[in-house]
């Protein structure tokens, strides 16, 4: 028996050959589509990986749902908390910020001390022990430290360092390292970026913590797990009622737990990215496919006529061309899914190191893959439909006849152009642009989007520079900010000024406040500044300003969330300081950069509380040669609870951003170039195919290769140049959209785009365009002059 060999139909064979013939153009389009699919997949994949890893981690290690702090509550109250309906479990802990004196480090480090239960490991926010063992309950000097800190300092079980615990210097021994779902993102008080070498989490046995902080039989920190289906708001209200007499600062859910909230904003950022960038790429893909398919159909007019004459239906012709677009899309989708999958995995790995997950669950959901593929096919289909329909509708008799030549007629513009007396090759460029304005316009839009992608992505770096400038150079100008566990009389400023190495010292208050307006409530920070405050300043944009002596100046986003305008009065609960709320008038608004803040004067704040002048922190500047002596003195000062080293902070911020930005900048340069290359290469190929005869006859007339090439290169350059201002505007628009969507409650991305960013974007875009048209240009050298002469137009 003869088994018939499966044979491709002639039309399918043509399809595959077309694809092979067009490989360079297919690749240029596929690269653009691939970028879109890859970004979609990467953003979705990473956000998915973060989300799942976090959920699994929380579940496995019993991460609490509600968090509460008080100054000192009796341990017996834990039983009452546990009895609140909806509460499944409560862990009552002692938790404090302390200063560390690390061997070999001049500057102090900070740490959050968290107590471990007397009996066994914690039931909530369980630790994942990475090395070593648990502290012996009887040993007061044994501690577990968080693994990133241990890694940054090179600590192993058995190593020792000193800490200032409740005013007394104590030697501690590391017996283990661990990770905790509570500290996936670990950040020191007042810091802007994680700095594992300068900030630690220390877990110590409850009895040691009780003794160190004079908290025997008491707790100041509670983590609460809820039963399934419990109403979080009512549990929080019940907790607040119970803890109110003990200096409670207000219980909250995971949304305000720092580590959780940072992760939330990161996940949200990635999701937003998936909806902003890929559509740009898909749009350009559709446009490129449209351009190329229209040309193919134009070139194959006679063949289409032939096919129809031979009896192929309109549907067959339609599906033939749609299938070609489908194949182009398949190449792009395959490229995008592969690259996107790899990128997502790599980036997720980077994230796993930046955020402290014991393991990262990376399993791309099939919906992400399917969405990527679907979007790719949709874009290509959208682009091909017009040309394919045109081919299907072409009557065979018309198709077999050559198309009518382009109609040029002399218009007003031509009279103007002849007055200028341009070289004829420039005239050819201008006429081509003017005769096909739609085509030129879409090309301009394409180039503009390439530039826009570059502007909008580089915007992050400018914006973060803007944050740095505002956060450090303009508002927080001190070298070190010393903070105290509770507010102290202003004499402490003089005491700090007497410490060795100090140049300037200024006292301030940082206090947590709960602001309400009508039914709206927001948590914020009060910053109270002395008159003429120089080291810590309120900013109105980039201009330093002083808060008025009466009322408070609010950051604009906070005011918007509270729905208040200047002149209106808020209700302010000063958590842990005053039981009953006070009235606070809104004196003005300033743009927000780092978090929701209400600015006041120190005297205004003290009046609000009805107390003598006090402060909660002192900002200092140091003499260059006095740093070591100052830090030695601080480490030994019992009253100091924290030391925020702004220079270290800035360094951590800059290095994190530099790392991220290098990776991201590279990615975006690739993305932006892909667009420019896709548009320029395909545009030039089509121009060449349409004008081969014209260009060859110019060569015959004796124009040099370069003079002839200029017709192609010049048009691409002209359109690409025209596109730049539009690209800047579009990029600025996308940046504004991103700034708005990415700003979280922790910080506001200022909409800053430096002139250098526009210049860089245009340089990359123009460079990619010119490089790709140069590739096409080489084909002019290979034009068969003799053959051209002999053929009919």
């Amino acid at each position, binding site marked *: 028996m003869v088994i018939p060999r499966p044979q491709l139909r002639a039309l399918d064979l043509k399809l595959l050959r077309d694809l092979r013939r067009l490989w360079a153009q297919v690749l240029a389009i596929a690269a653009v589509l691939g970028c879109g699919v890859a970004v979609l997949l990467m953003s979705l994949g990473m956000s998915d990986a973060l989300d799942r890893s976090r959920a699994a981690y929380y579940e496995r290690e019993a991460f609490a749902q509600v968090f509460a702090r008080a100054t000192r509550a009796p341990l017996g109250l834990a039983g009452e908390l546990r009895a609140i309906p909806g509460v499944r479990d409560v862990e009552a802990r002692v938790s404090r910020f302390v200063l560390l004196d690390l061997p070999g480090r001049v500057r102090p480090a900070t740490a959050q001390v968290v107590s471990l239960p007397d009996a066994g490991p914690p039931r909530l926010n369980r630790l994942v022990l990475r090395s070593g063992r648990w502290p012996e309950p009887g040993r007061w000097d044994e501690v577990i430290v968080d693994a990133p800190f241990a890694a940054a300092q090179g600590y192993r079980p058995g190593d020792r360092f000193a800490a200032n615990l409740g005013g007394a210097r104590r030697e501690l021994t590391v017996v283990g390292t661990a990770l905790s779902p509570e500290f996936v993102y670990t950040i020191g008080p007042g810091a802007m970026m994680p700095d594992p070498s300068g900030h630690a989490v220390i877990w110590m046995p409850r009895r040691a913590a009780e003794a160190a902080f004079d908290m025997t039989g008491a707790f100041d920190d509670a983590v609460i797990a809820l039963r399934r289906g419990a109403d979080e708001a009512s549990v929080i209200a019940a907790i607040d009622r119970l803890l109110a007499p003990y200096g409670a600062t207000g219980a909250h859910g995971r949304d305000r737990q720092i580590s959780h909230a940072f992760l939330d904003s990161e996940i949200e950022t990635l999701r937003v990215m998936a909806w902003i960038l890929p559509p740009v790429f898909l749009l350009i893909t559709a446009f490129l496919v449209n351009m190329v398919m229209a040309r193919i159909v134009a070139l194959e007019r006679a063949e289409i006529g032939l096919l129809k004459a031979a009896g192929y239906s309109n549907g067959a012709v339609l599906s033939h061309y749609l299938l070609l677009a489908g194949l182009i899309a398949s190449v792009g989708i395959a490229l995008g899914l592969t690259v996107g999958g790899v990128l997502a995995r790599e980036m997720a790995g980077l994230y796993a190191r930046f955020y402290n997950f014991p393991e990262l669950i990376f399993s791309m959901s099939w919906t992400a893959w399917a969405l990527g593929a679907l979007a790719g096919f949709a874009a290509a289909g959208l682009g091909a439909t017009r040309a394919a329909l045109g081919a299907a509708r072409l009557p065979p008799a018309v198709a077999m006849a050559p198309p009518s030549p382009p109609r040029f007629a002399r218009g007003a513009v031509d009279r103007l152009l*002849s007055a200028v007396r341009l070289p*004829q090759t420039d005239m*050819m460029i201008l006429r081509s642009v003017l*005769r096909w304005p739609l085509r030129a316009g879409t090309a301009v839009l394409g180039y503009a989007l390439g530039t826009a992608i570059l502007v909008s992505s580089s915007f992050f770096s400018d914006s973060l520079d803007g944050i740095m400038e505002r956060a450090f150079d303009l508002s927080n100008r001190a070298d070190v900010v010393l903070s105290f566990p509770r507010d102290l009389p202003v004499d402490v400023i003089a005491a700090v000024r007497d410490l060795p190495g100090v140049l300037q010292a200024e006292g301030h208050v940082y206090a947590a406040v709960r602001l309400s307006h009508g039914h709206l409530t927001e948590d914020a920070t009060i910053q109270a500044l002395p008159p003429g405050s120089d080291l810590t300043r309120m900013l109105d944009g980039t201009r330093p300003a002083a808060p008025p002596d009466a009322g408070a100046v609010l950051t604009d986003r906070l005011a918007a969330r509270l729905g208040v305008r200047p002149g209106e009065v808020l209700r302010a609960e000063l958590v842990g300081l005053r039981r009953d709320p006070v009235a606070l008038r809104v004196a003005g608004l300033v743009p927000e950069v780092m978090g929701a803040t209400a600015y006041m004067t120190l005297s205004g704040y003290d009046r609000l509380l009805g107390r003598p002048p006090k402060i909660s922190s002192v900002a200092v500047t140091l003499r260059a040669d006095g740093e070591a002596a100052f830090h030695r003195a601080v480490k030994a000062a019992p009253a100091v609870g924290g030391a925020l080293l702004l220079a270290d902070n800035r360094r951590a911020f800059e290095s994190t951003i530099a790392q991220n930005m290098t990776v991201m900048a590279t990615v975006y340069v690739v993305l932006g170039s892909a667009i420019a290359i896709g548009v320029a290469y395909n545009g030039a190929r089509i121009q060449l195919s349409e004008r081969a005869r*014209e260009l060859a006859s110019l060569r015959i007339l004796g124009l040099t290769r370069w003079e002839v090439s200029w017709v192609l290169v010049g048009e691409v350059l002209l359109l690409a140049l025209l596109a730049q201002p539009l690209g800047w505007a579009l990029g600025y628009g996308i940046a504004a959209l991103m700034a708005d969507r990415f700003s979280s409650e922790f910080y506001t991305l200022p909409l800053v785009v430096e002139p250098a960013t526009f210049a860089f974007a245009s340089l990359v875009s123009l460079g990619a365009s010119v490089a790709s048209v140069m590739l096409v240009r080489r084909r002019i050298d290979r034009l068969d002059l003799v053959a051209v*002469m002999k053929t009919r137009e």
Partner: protein
Amino acid sequence: MDDSSRMWADAPGAVAFRTEALCKVYETGPVRVVALDNVDLTLRMGELTVLLGASGSGKSTLLNILGGLDHASSGRVWYRELELTALGDRALTRYRRDHVGFVFQFYNLVPSLTARENVRLVTDIAPDPMPAEEALGLVGLGARMDHFPAQLSGGEQQRVAIARAVAKRPGVLLCDEPTGALDSRTGVQVLEVLDRVNRETGTTTVVITHNAGIRAMAHRVLRFADGRLASEEVNATRVAPSEIVW
């Protein structure tokens, strides 16, 4: 190379082109086609020469080599004292630019440029051109200078192509089937223009044609067959284009 201005109205009778054992072989895979087979010929200054022959006889190949569009496989070609077969691509471009005017069967005008601008394509780069307007006047199109090719008839387009070719005051005018796409009335108009250019400017002119009737207007007629020069005749008296029997 830089004597093109003197070329315009050069001494009649001097040698314009000379070939020596000129061969052109096209090889595509195993197929070997001999287009020109040992051709020796001489074309003289100021003459209008007609090349006759069937398709594939080698006349177009000869024209392409004379015009610097194609390379010989072997043998040598001189344009006056300049050996074309020794020139590289860049020098051939320069040669075309300075000395050669081409007229093609399908006009090869740039559709996005007007008649005047198509001529300027050449006058912009030639060392000693005549004004584009003068060239168009020479071919009788002074009134249609600002029309685009699509607004002109076939004959008019071919006359623009001739104006474009002569505007640089070329040493030689090479025409490949200039009337091939035209009806007889328009064809005669085009031939009249070529004749006039040849008479008034003394430009050496080579015309390829299938139409044997055209030979009557030439000084010299070369007949090609199978890549060889089959015969050469000199017309004692030339016939005006209008009298040519089509």
